[in-house]
């Protein structure tokens, strides 16, 4: 029964054209970034490594598909939330707007089953968006730049990973990014259960993310103390995977916090939805 419900929800999601905005936007952005890097990437890479090049001779190609994919993942995980909220914010509120809530809930399935199927479908959309990001980043990267060693430049250290030591890190990083985006999906889903129009959840989700990101970025003692409690602080923790050695306890901690947010937001949404007075 659940499988059927999820299939129906997925059909509803992928029937709407707005669902494809995310895929088109990511495809376009990645293509634009890759093209720009093709023409200007070497200059930028030389600028980033100029201190190192004073002492060392670089032999080989560091401007490769892995490096570009790493940059894109850095850039886009901050901006993808809007594309997630666009769909997840509509999952429950959309039924209300369309006036199909009552018809949906008169079927012989529990409210929790309906809610779960919608949540799972939303999560599948989120994961597919990250999967699409991975495919276009690594795929176009391979065609345009080929593959090689990955250079990761941190504020005071430089790590160069062997090409055979990179792909598994990317798979884990994309998985982690999907987890982070699932929190955004849960948040939009939660807001979606409160209102009857999809615009509200989308705007509210983005507002929360923007406020959290700004608070995280400002180095004031008051904000520093609340920073560990903001989920946005852990969305970019996939970067820990590109460290040597990987700080596994910090990574697991970030994963648990993100998972905790998903469980909590889903729990609160279920609580609200079960008691919701359906009027449309």
């Amino acid at each position, binding site marked *: 029964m659940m499988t059927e419900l999820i299939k129906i929800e997925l059909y509803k999601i992928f029937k709407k054209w707005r669902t494809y905005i995310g895929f088109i936007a990511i495809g376009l952005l990645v293509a634009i970034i890759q093209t720009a890097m093709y023409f200007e990437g070497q200059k930028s890479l030389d600028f980033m490594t100029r201190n190192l090049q004073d002492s060392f001779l670089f032999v080989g190609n560091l401007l490769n598909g892995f490096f570009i994919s790493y940059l894109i993942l850095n850039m886009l995980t901050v901006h993808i939330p809007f594309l997630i909220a666009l769909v997840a914010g509509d999952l429950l509120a959309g039924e209300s707007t369309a006036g199909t809530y009552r018809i949906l809930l008169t079927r012989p399935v529990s409210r929790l089953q309906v809610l779960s199927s919608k949540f799972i479908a939303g999560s599948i959309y989120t994961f597919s968006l990250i999967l699409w990001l991975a495919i276009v980043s690594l795929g176009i990267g391979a065609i345009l730049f080929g593959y090689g060693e990955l250079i990761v430049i941190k504020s*005071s250290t430089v790590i160069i990973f062997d090409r055979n030591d990179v792909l598994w890190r990317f798979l884990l990083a994309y998985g982690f990014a999907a987890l982070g985006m699932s929190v955004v999906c849960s948040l939009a889903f939660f807001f979606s259960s409160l209102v009857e129009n999809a615009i509200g959840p989308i705007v509210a989700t983005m507002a929360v993310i923007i406020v959290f990101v700004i608070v995280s970025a400002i180095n004031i003692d008051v904000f520093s103390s609340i920073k560990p409690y903001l989920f946005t602080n852990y969305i970019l923790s996939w970067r820990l995977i590109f460290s040597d050695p990987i700080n596994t306890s910090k990574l697991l901690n970030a994963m648990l916090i993100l998972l905790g947010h998903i469980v909590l937001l889903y729990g609160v949404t279920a609580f609200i939805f079960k008691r919701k007075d359906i009027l449309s």
Partner: protein
Amino acid sequence: MQMISMRKLKFVLLSLMIFITMSEFSPQSKDPDEILDGVKEAFKKIEDYEVDIHVKIDVDFLKVPDSEAKLYFKQPNKIHVESKKFALLPRQGLDFSPLGLISGKYTALYEREDTIRDIPTSVVKIIPLGNDGDIILSTFWIDQTRNLIIRVESTKKPTGTFTIDFTYEKSDDHYELPSQMEFTFSVDRMMFPRGMDGQLDDDDDSNKISNSTTGKVYITYTNYKVNQGLPDELFETESNKTK
């Protein structure tokens, strides 16, 4: 009392001046140019070579896997490096050519005799003339019996002081060429510019790295092929231009 102190001071100053003058103009027991020319001449027998190199980098702000490459050299200073993977190589002393290490106009001073790894060496200081180069001062430990540079210590602007230690063994062609090179350099902790995404990854262990550090690069040279007649075109290929 004050008169005695003044006299004492004058005596000390006079003694110092005599000592400095004597040491400046005392005849050197060895001719530094002769020592250096011996090294240059010995190396001129090697017109070109190719060699496999294994590079291991030990710098606390730099985590790089060991790399393998092939180094081609042709007199007087042509270098070409080929590597299937990315390789990070020290800019100094890679080709261990004395002509490269002792280039341009300079003043040479014989300093003393010293022993490095049980090898008796002559220590020669080189002060480059003019303002063209980056090297401020170099010290060479030279094995005069084999005319080989055993150690080089140079102060370079702006990167600071570096030391290169060479270990030699006879190649199959009976040329004495380095089998190992240890490049030691002191560097200030590097700060890297912001990435193209406008932000840098946080450094988990940035606080653990001291402001000044000593880095080491170990290069192992194997499978020398000397005087094979390497073509000039080899040194004009694209990979050679890689920064």
